[in-house]
C-alpha cells in the first residue's frame, strides 16, 4: 500500500475532477428528475383518462429495468435509430428518466397519503379540483415525501458511478484510471473514493434529517 504515491497532488486533482463531474451530473439530474417526477406523479394521482394509464405503464417499465442498461442504451443504442446524444447529455438523460420514474412513485404515494377529508372539505368550500390539488393536497403531500425524496437523491448521486460504463469521467471512472497506474495504489484510492462519496452523501442525509424535524 503506497499512500504517499497514491495521494500525489496530480492524482488528487484528477479525483477531484471526477467528483466535480459526479456532482454536476447529479445536480442537473436531480433538478430535472424532480420536475418531471412531480408532474408524472400528479398525473398518476389525478387519474386523468388515457394519460394516467400511459404514465403508469412507462413508470412501471422504467422502474423494472436496471439503470445501467438504460445508461448504456441511451448512449450506444439510440444512435442506431438516429438519436445521438453527447456523453454528458446522455448520462444526464438516462439518470433523469430513471430517477423521474422513481420520484413519480414517491410523489403519487405522498399525495395518496393525504387525508381524503381534506379534499372533500376543500371541494365543498368551493375550491376547484386544481386549486384543491395546488393549495391543499400538494403542500401536505410534500411533507410525506421529503424523507424518501432525499434518499432517492442520495441514490441518484451514487448511481452516477454507473455512467462509468459509457466512460463518463466521473469519480469512479477516474479512480479506476489512477488504480491502474500501480497495484499498490488500489486500496488507498478505494478508501479515498469511499470517503469522498460518504462525506457528500452523509451531508445530504443530515440535511434531510433537519428538514424532517422542521416539516413534521
Amino acid at each position, binding site marked *: 500500500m503506497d499512500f504517499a504515491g497514491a495521494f500525489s497532488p496530480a492524482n488528487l486533482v484528477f479525483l477531484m475532477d471526477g467528483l466535480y463531474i459526479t456532482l454536476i451530473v447529479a445536480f442537473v439530474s436531480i433538478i430535472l428528475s424532480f420536475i418531471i417526477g412531480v408532474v408524472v406523479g400528479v398525473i398518476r394521482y389525478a387519474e386523468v383518462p388515457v394519460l394516467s394509464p400511459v404514465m403508469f405503464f412507462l413508470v412501471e417499465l422504467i422502474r423494472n*429495468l436496471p439503470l*445501467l*442498461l438504460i445508461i448504456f442504451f441511451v448512449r450506444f443504442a439510440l444512435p442506431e435509430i438516429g438519436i445521438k446524444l453527447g456523453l454528458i447529455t446522455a448520462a444526464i438523460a438516462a439518470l433523469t428518466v430513471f430517477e423521474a420514474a422513481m420520484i413519480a412513485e414517491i410523489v403519487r404515494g405522498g399525495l395518496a397519503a393525504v387525508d381524503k377529508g381534506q379534499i372533500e372539505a376543500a371541494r365543498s368550500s368551493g375550491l376547484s379540483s386544481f386549486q384543491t390539488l395546488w393549495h391543499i393536497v400538494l403542500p401536505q403531500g410534500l411533507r410525506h415525501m421529503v424523507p424518501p425524496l432525499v434518499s432517492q437523491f442520495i441514490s441518484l448521486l451514487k448511481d452516477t458511478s454507473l455512467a462509468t460504463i459509457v466512460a463518463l469521467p466521473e469519480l469512479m471512472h477516474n479512480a479506476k484510471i489512477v488504480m491502474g497506474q500501480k497495484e499498490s495504489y488500489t486500496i488507498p484510492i*478505494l478508501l479515498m473514493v469511499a470517503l469522498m*462519496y460518504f462525506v457528500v*452523501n452523509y451531508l445530504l442525509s443530515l440535511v434531510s434529517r433537519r428538514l424532517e424535524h422542521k416539516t413534521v
Partner: protein
Amino acid sequence: MDFSILTNYFDLYLRGFWGTLLSSVLALIGSFVIGTVIAVFRITTIKALRWFGTGYVEFIRNIPLLLVVCIFYYGPSAIGFTLDGFKAGTIGLAVYTSAFIAEAIRAGIMAVPKGQMEASRSSGLSYVQAMVHIILPQAIKLVIPPLGNQFINLIKNSSVLTLVAGFDLMYFADSISTETYRTFDTYIFVAVFYLVLTVPLSYGVRVWERRLQSKY
C-alpha cells in the same frame, strides 16, 4: 426489430440470464443473513455492537454499489489473492444490500409490540431465545414486502457485474452486440429478459402489501 438475434444467440442470452438470477439469489441469501445480524446488533443493549451496526449501515448506504463491488474485486488482488468477477460482484451485492435489509428488518422488529419481548423474558426465555422464537417470526411478515423490493433491486443491480466481467446478462449482451453490430435490437431483448424477472416480482410485492394493509 430483428428477432433472429434472439433465436441465434438464445443460448448466450440464457447463460447471462442464469448468471444474473444465480448472482441475485445468492446475494439475497447472503444479504439476508448479514442484514439480520446487523439489525439485531442495532437494537441490542450492548453499546459496542450497536455502534458497529450503525456505522456499518451508515457507511454502506452512503457509498455506491459499484464502489463496494470494486472493493471486493480490486481489493483482494492488491493483497495477493484474486476473486473472479462473479464472486466479487455477488459478495459486493450481498454486502451492499445487507445494509438496506438490516434497516428493513430493524423497522419490522420495532413494529412488534414491546409487550411481546417483556412477556417472553418474564416467562424465562433468554434474550436470544425471545428474539429467535418470538420477535423475529412476527417481524418477518412485515418485512416481506421491503425484502421483495430489495430482491427486485438486487436483480437490477446485479447488472454491475458486467463492469467486473461477472458473466451476467449485460456481460453476454456485450459479446452478442459486438458480433451482430446491432446494439439497439440486442439490448431490447436484454430488457425483456430483465422484465421477465422483475415485473412478476413487483406485482407479487404489491399484492402482499395490499394484503397486509387490509389486515391492519
